[in-house]
């Protein structure tokens, strides 16, 4: 589902950017995971990803920022696989982000209800 045309593109881009990062952290936060599997999981959130190539740079940045760490493991069926997992700092950030997200969505929901 694409919103461009109906919604201001810049607004969706900015929203998507923040939310995509939250989603990535949540996926990784669930347990150590192979990079390709992260992409596969995100495919179901059609509104979030424009192209899959954008996900890897974000993962790289999360790694550079010390929020995730990676390990390479040999794969019997292909090239070595890169696995992602949260660092302690990443876990803390994810916890804060989730709490903020819940508060935000709840309050926005309440606001919308009050105005409909």
């Amino acid at each position, binding site marked *: 589902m694409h919103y461009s045309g109906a919604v201001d593109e810049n607004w969706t881009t900015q929203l998507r950017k923040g939310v995509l990062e939250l989603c990535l952290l949540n996926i990784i936060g669930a347990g150590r995971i192979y*990079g*390709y599997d992260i992409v596969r999981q995100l495919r179901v959130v059609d509104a979030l990803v*424009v192209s*899959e*190539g954008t996900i*890897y740079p974000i993962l790289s*940045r999360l790694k550079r920022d010390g929020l995730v760490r990676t390990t390479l493991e040999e794969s019997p069926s*292909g*090239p*070595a696989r890169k696995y992602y997992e949260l660092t302690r700092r990443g876990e803390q950030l994810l916890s804060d982000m989730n709490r903020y997200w819940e508060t935000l969505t709840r309050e926005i929901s309440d606001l919308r209800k009050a105005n409909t």
Partner: protein
Amino acid sequence: MMMVALSPDAKEHLDQYLKQIRMALAGRESIDADEVERDVLSHIDAELSGTSEPVPAHRLLAVLDRLGEPNEWVPAEEAAWRRPFAALSARPGDWRLAAVSLASLVLTVILMTGRVMLWPLPLVLLPLAFVTARINIALLDDRREPIGLRTWLLYPVLLAIYVPLFFALIGGPTWLVGNFLSDDPSARSRIAAMTHASPSIAAPALVVFVLGCWWILLGLVVIQTIASVRALFRPFAGFIDRRHAVRLTLAGLVLALIGIAALTLPRFLVATVSAQGIARPDAKPVDPVGAILDAFRTHPLVAVADAHGNEQVHAFRLALIRDPRLAGIVNDVVVEFGTARYQDVIDQFIRGEDVPYSSLRRVWEDTTQIEFDWDLPIYEELLRAIRSVNAARPPAQRLRVVLGDPPMDWENIHSSTEYLAHMSTLDRDEYAVEVIRREVLAKNRRALVIYGGQHLLRKNAVPNANDEWARGLVAQLERPGIASLFTIDPETRIPLSASQADITQWRKPSLALLTGTRLGQMRFTAPAQRLVRFEDQFDAVVYLGEPDEMTTANIGRTRCDDAEYMQMRTARLSLLKPPAGAPVAALGDLLRRSCEGR
């Protein structure tokens, strides 16, 4: 490395995709391009596992399509600055950004050449044109799209910056050194003096040496930064490789060696010649008039030094003026011994018109000088000789006498203080130069310049002086390149036979060129002064006899019996007195002695 086997087409597509990603990531040091490539391959491998092999191109392209454009692998925050430009060049074949580049350049040119510059707008527009052109080319590279006809929009912009930048880089400090030497003749002279080479060799040699050193440095830097140079001059420098940089370094080495050789060889040769005692050839006597005729073929001005009052020099000058071979060759005679205030008087006199003597004598009596040198009859005689010569010549061959001493208003000079104050505002040589420029050079005429020897010196004899040039009229004409003179010293004080014994056998007068001769090598300055050789000061010497043969003219009975003259001259001589205890006679005493014929 992928495990999934790809068809040749698919493999080609993948290679292309990876190449474009690497180009998009080029220059972004925060991103490990190898790691990104591993991520891509790992993703594709996982995506295609289980697919029948070899994987056809369309299956791979579907995966690549989901991955998105190669430039999307650049993190959004890294590429933020590119967005506005990318928007102007969003699709293949989009010419808007290229048009913006060229328009900025055209507007810059219009503003710079038009009446309204709107400063500093051109300063903003030109970099904008360049930057947008570079970004456009980078975006085209990203898309693997050829520049095509956009060349006509982008290359003018890039060349407007690259061409001057290229020459600035190739020339480097040479431009500064060259300009400095070109603007400062004294610097050229200092270098020439240091190296013993002529200024016309020393200055270019220094420039060649600096250029050589610069190329060596530039070549070494380029060897270390080939990729940066290619990027800086993209898309024109793709062909540059290490070999070019090495060649530049070697060319610089050759130039530096040539420069060093040209700068040091003259000094080495001089030292060798001096050490081996190799004798220079003797000066050869020639006919003075013939030599002066030759000099006028290459010089508009020939200067003959005047040893004030010397009768042999006067006789030589008279013979020169009267020689028919100079008719039509010399147009003017510029003299020190007449005040420019009375140029109209001397013009009338020289033309042969009747001029009252009371007016004529003011020409030499009212110069800026208080001494009676110009009152000696020999100077009046020279003027009368010129008048006589003119009377016998057709108008086109007649001589004009140009008075070179600055105008002097003696009516307003009543004291030593007033005289010194007035003289401090004058530069007699500067005035003579101005007169020569205006009356001779500007009119494409040729002149015989008759001035005291000090005014004709080229080199400064003051020890450790910063400026090697003397301050006389010859130096003031030659130093800035206004004119080149042929200067002649009818020598009356230095015993020339001490340097070259056979001189005493020469016919009197004889002229000898000095350059390259033993006589020219003779020291011209006193031991306490800076070493300046005879050939550095004059081009030729006229031999009139040994110093003890020289005689000085006396003032003459007519003037000494002229009470009004004696009162005027004595009063002026009294304006300057020798310092107390100085071993020189007061000027008034000199006049009295001259009147007594001593």
